[in-house]
Each structure stands twice: as C-alpha cells, then as structure tokens.
C-alpha cells in the first residue's frame, strides 16, 4: 500500500512586520473621510470636533495673514536652539558618565532624581530664575532634551564593545583619539535613537514653554486657541506640530542612514 503524500505546511510566517506605504495612506484617507463626513453631516458639534476642512480653513486663514509663518519661525527657533543646547549639554554629561567614574557616580543619581521632574511644573521657577523672555523657554525645552540625551549617551558608550577599546589601547591610540574614533562612533546608534525621542520631546515642550510670555509661537497659538475655545485653530496648531514631528522623524532617519550606513 502506497504511503499518502502530503505537502509540507509552511510554518515560518509572521513576526516580521514590514511597511506598506499605500496601506497607511488609504487608512489616513479613510479616517479623514469619515471625520469630515461626521462634521458636515452634523453628527458631532463643530466645537467639539472641528472637521478636517474647518481645520484646514483655520490654518489657511493664518497662513494668508502671514501669522502662521511668524508662529512657525518663532517656535522653530526655540525648538532648534533649545534642542541644540540640551543635546550638547546632555552629550557632554552623558559621555563623561560613560567615560569617567567620578562623572558616573555623581551623574547617575542626579539623572535619576531630576529626570522624572515634570519640567512644566518648574516653569514658574524658571520664570523667576530666567525671566519671562526667551531664556526660560530655552531652558524648558533644553531641560526636557537634556536628560534623555544623557541617558542615551552614557548607555551608548556602555554598548561600545570593550574589545574595540582594548584594541585601540593596544595600538597606543591617544585617549582623545579613542574617544573620537572608537567610543563616539560606537555610541552613535544609541545617541541617534535618543535624538528621535528628544526631538519629539522638544515639540511637546514648546507648547509648555510658550505658555508664558510668548507673543508668537505654535505653542502660544495652540494655548491661546484653547482658551478662546477656537477648536479649529487649536487642532490646526496641533496638526502643524504633527507635521513638524513627521519631518523631524524623517530627518532623523536620513541622519541615521548617513551616520550609521555601516550597520
């Protein structure tokens, strides 16, 4: 009697999520469509959830009046400067913590103690210390960026394989050369991954930073719209932040491709 012959069943699928551009677009379009429909059919009050078109109109009005650009540039300057300052300071402390016992002994408890403090809660203090001008805004954003950068930098240094450092030492590379050519590039992947978080944080914090004493800025725009109950403008500002977030994310991806092409 002949043995029954079966085809082998494939069982190795899944667990490898990919990305499909079109699905995302279609999904977005669908959500927007339903949202718009809900608005124009009057299923939800325009005050509670303005329709996409209303949001677009609100943004367009701001763009035409030229205010949108003023808000955007004001915020981008704060985000940019605050992020750069926080990142530089964070990298300095983080790398020091990755390299030196003293910095690590002091830095670790410092980070643990100060990282969880909501910077927004400190805003009134920042105002007393740094005034209501640009300084307190930069500090708010910078502080938010600083701590995650410290963590990313020192854990990045920790991930650099010890044997690479030993190799460099065995060829008598000077300390600075080991830091620049071995430790820093080795930590770069973790550091850049940290950037992804800190850029988003900077965007979140610009709203808090511009809560006080800001005439212009996306955050000021959003907060003011909230107080004025102009929900279409409020969501318009939020959409701007989201777009900035998307752009920043893309920028980081490009940076990763450049810096980490070897991976």
């Amino acid at each position: 009697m002949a043995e029954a012959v079966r085809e082998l069943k494939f069982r190795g699928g899944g667990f490898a999520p990919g990305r499909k551009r079109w699905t995302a677009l279609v999904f977005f379009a669908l959500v927007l469509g339903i949202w718009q429909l809900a608005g124009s059919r009057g299923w939800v009050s325009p005050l509670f959830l303005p329709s996409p078109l209303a949001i677009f109109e609100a943004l367009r009005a701001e763009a035409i009046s030229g205010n949108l650009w003023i808000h955007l540039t004001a915020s981008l300057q704060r985000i940019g400067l605050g992020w750069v300052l926080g990142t530089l300071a964070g990298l300095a402390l983080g790398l020091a913590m990755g390299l030196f016992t003293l910095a690590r002994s002091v830095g670790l408890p410092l980070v643990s103690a100060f990282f969880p403090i909501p910077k927004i809660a400190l805003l009134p203090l920042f105002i007393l210390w740094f005034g209501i001008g640009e300084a307190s805004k930069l500090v708010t954003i910078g502080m938010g960026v600083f701590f995650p950068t410290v963590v990313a930098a020192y854990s990045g240094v920790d991930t650099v394989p010890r044997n690479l450092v030993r190799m460099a030492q065995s060829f008598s590379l000077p300390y600075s050369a080991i830091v620049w050519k071995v430790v820093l590039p080795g930590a770069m992947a973790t550091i850049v991954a940290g950037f992804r978080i800190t850029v988003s944080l900077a965007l979140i914090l610009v709203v808090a930073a511009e809560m006080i004493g800001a005439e212009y800025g996306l955050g000021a725009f959003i907060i003011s719209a909230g107080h004025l109950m102009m929900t279409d403008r409020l969501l318009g500002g939020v959409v701007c932040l989201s777009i900035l977030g998307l752009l920043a994310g893309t920028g980081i991806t490009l940076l990763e491709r450049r810096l980490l092409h070897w991976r």
Partner: protein
Amino acid sequence: MQVIAEAIGHDYGPLPVLENVDLAVREGEVLAIIGPSGCGKSTLLSILGGLLQPSRGRVLLKGQPQADCLNPLTFVFQDFALLPWRSVAGNVELVLEHHRLGSAERRRRVADALARTGLSDFAAALPKQLSGGMRQRVGIARALAVRPAVLLLDEPLSALDAQTRELLLEDFESLWVRERTTAIYVTHNLSEALRLADRVAVFSRRPGRLKELVEIPLPRGQRSGAQAQVELAALHDRLWGLIRAEAQSAVTELEHG
C-alpha cells in the same frame, strides 16, 4: 626585541589565575602557548602586551625595536576587533593616524599591508561585507602596518571554520618564513602550534604555571616531509599527554567541586 616575564602572578579578585610565570621570548622566535581552557593564557598575553597590570612580578623589554616600528607590542585578536564603521583600509589606517607619518608614507603602509594579506581589492569594503577569514586578514594587515617588534596573537584562528583556518595558517607560515617577526601565539590547537612555533610553552590548569617548554627543532616550512612528520607526531603525542593530564584534572576538579 625581547620580552621577558619575571615571576608573573595574577589574581582576579580572590581567583588566582597565574602563578610564578617566568618566560623569556627570544628575538625572532614564534612561541606558542597552550594549556587547558581558563588557565590564564589570555591573561598572560594581556600582561605581556601591557594591557593588564599583573598582581605580581614584572615584564621586561630588552633591546630596541627596528627603526620603522610604530607599535612594538602588537595584538591580533581572536574576535578581530575591527571597527564596523570603517572600511578595510580605514581600519588599517586607524592605527597609523596618530603617528607622525606623511600622508604618502601612511598610504604606502596601508597599501603594503593590504597587499601582503591579499586584501588590495577590498580596501573600500566594510567589515560586514567580508568573510570571517578575510576579517582576520584585516586584523593581521592592521598589525603588520605598524611593523611590530613582537606580535601577540590570542587564538587568532579559533573563530574561523576549518578551511579558512588552514588557509590563514599557510599565510602565517609563509609570513614567518619570509620575515622573522617575534610572535607569541596562544592557541588551543596542537597542530597549529606544531606548524608555526619554535617553542611550545605548556601551561598547567588554573592557576596557570609554566609546566614545560618544548622545543621544536625543525625549521618552519620544512615540516611537511615524511621524516618531519614522524618527529612531529612524537612531539604531538608528548604535548598531548601533557595537556590531557591537565585538562582531565581540570574537568575532574570541576565535577567534584
């Protein structure tokens, strides 16, 4: 240049790893170090290369390295230790950049080292694009580029498959036939030691002591004839006997606490 270990002992915390090692590496020789796993071979090599401060004893250097030597004691690592973000040429260049060489001289040294290891066509490749054997050749090229006085090799072939190992073994062989660079070669593999070494240092189990120093009287490159094979087989048996005793008691020790 000669490297001399004087009464070297080393502990990792409460764990004694090396005990009273006296060893003089002669100029121009290849000294193989064998011994049971965990007996302190890598530790000793690190001490000899100045990467580890020994708990006891000292390391002496005698004589001057040749004029063009940039890094007298130069390692070749078991795991290659290549910077993944640098190209093959870049990895070799790394160890030259901090020396005051003209850029022409630097390029010449890189090209020369790559040529000697057969990597000229791969200068621009990244380590991840290379096979294991080729990666170790980069490690060797990097070591050769600094014209070392003493090469310190810690199981340089043990991460490679058998065929690749054989090919690289031939490379080493011809290297040491052509130029007599002093080398300390740590290995688990007896036949590697017998192919390459002038002397074989056999270590006891942990804490490692120098148990015996066995001379291989045949010149390198002339060890494949029938007569040589017979002699080598005898040596092989002798060395194997020494190691097996140590390895067995190491295992017994493990099993019985």
